[in-house]
């Protein structure tokens, strides 16, 4: 499908304007059978509310946790998730793929 993360970026803007701390997580690279293509994104606010997906549910919890740090520090982070990556992050992709996720603060 050609459709994109229509409401996610709008939500990012709306939340930020409403005074919330907001982070955006975007899949920037994939290897193997990753569940969501590069460009897929997840928006997270400082209440832990999120919209969108970077993996179809496998690693969102970890991304949200990291996003909280990014909202605090303002410094972007690159996260990597993969099936053989148990040492770095205690979650992986059951599909066997690997993804890199860029997390940045909005605003």
């Amino acid at each position, binding site marked *: 499908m050609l459709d*994109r993360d229509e409401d996610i970026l709008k939500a990012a*803007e709306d939340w930020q304007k409403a005074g919330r701390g907001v982070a955006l997580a975007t899949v*920037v*690279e994939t290897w193997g059978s990753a569940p969501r*293509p590069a460009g897929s994104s997840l928006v997270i606010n400082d209440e832990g509310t999120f919209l969108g997906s970077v993996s179809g549910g496998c690693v969102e919890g970890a991304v949200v946790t990291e996003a909280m740090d990014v909202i605090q520090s303002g*410094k*972007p982070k690159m996260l990597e998730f993969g099936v053989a990556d148990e040492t770095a992050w205690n979650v992986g992709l059951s599909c066997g793929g690997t993804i890199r996720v*860029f997390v940045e*603060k*909005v605003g």
Partner: protein
Amino acid sequence: MKLDILHELNAERAARRPVILVTDTESGEQRLVKAKDFARDPLRAELDKQLRMGKSASVEAGGKKLFLNVYAPTAKLVIIGAVHISQALAPLARSLGYDVTVVDPRTAFASPERFPDIPLIAEWPDTALPPLNVDAYTAFVAVTHDPKIDDPALLHAFERNCFYIGALGSRKTHAKRGDRLRAQGAKESDIARIHAPIGLAIGAVSPSEIAVAIMAEITAVLRLPPKEREEAA
């Protein structure tokens, strides 16, 4: 992402204008490049390629790791003619991700029973088309075989610079159509943009096969660079 970049990105998306967000994934620096500015950008080759593919990707340039996030509008397909071919074409196009609308003033053809779940406008093109915001991300197909309906629709497609314009009919029928459109003031370069006979030459016979040939041709125009596109056709 800076708020002004996010705001501009959302405005461009709402206006259905393609943009690419370039992010240096080490420093976090970002810039938004509008498609009309690609030609004078140092990354123009990469930007052109990724937009054509409609795919975001990481690239390395000038010793920097950059992520190119492509925001291309959802492609639309406007079908003039609620005919048998359109009954196969509309659901096929929708499965490929297009927003599909069918226009036909003949209410016997444009009936919801024949087109379940497909937006259908039973009006003449002059009434139906202006509100549809036909644009450069729209593929436009005229298949009624009736010049009273197809011709004004094609003139509208020229004016809106659709990325693909196709019309049903043999070479002979198409030559006559060219004469009629010319008489109505169409430019030679516009008439030359019409794909007719419509669809890639794959020997399509049934309405479903013709629909496949049409969507294959539209896909080639959307995704291939001009040279390779000519080879495919």
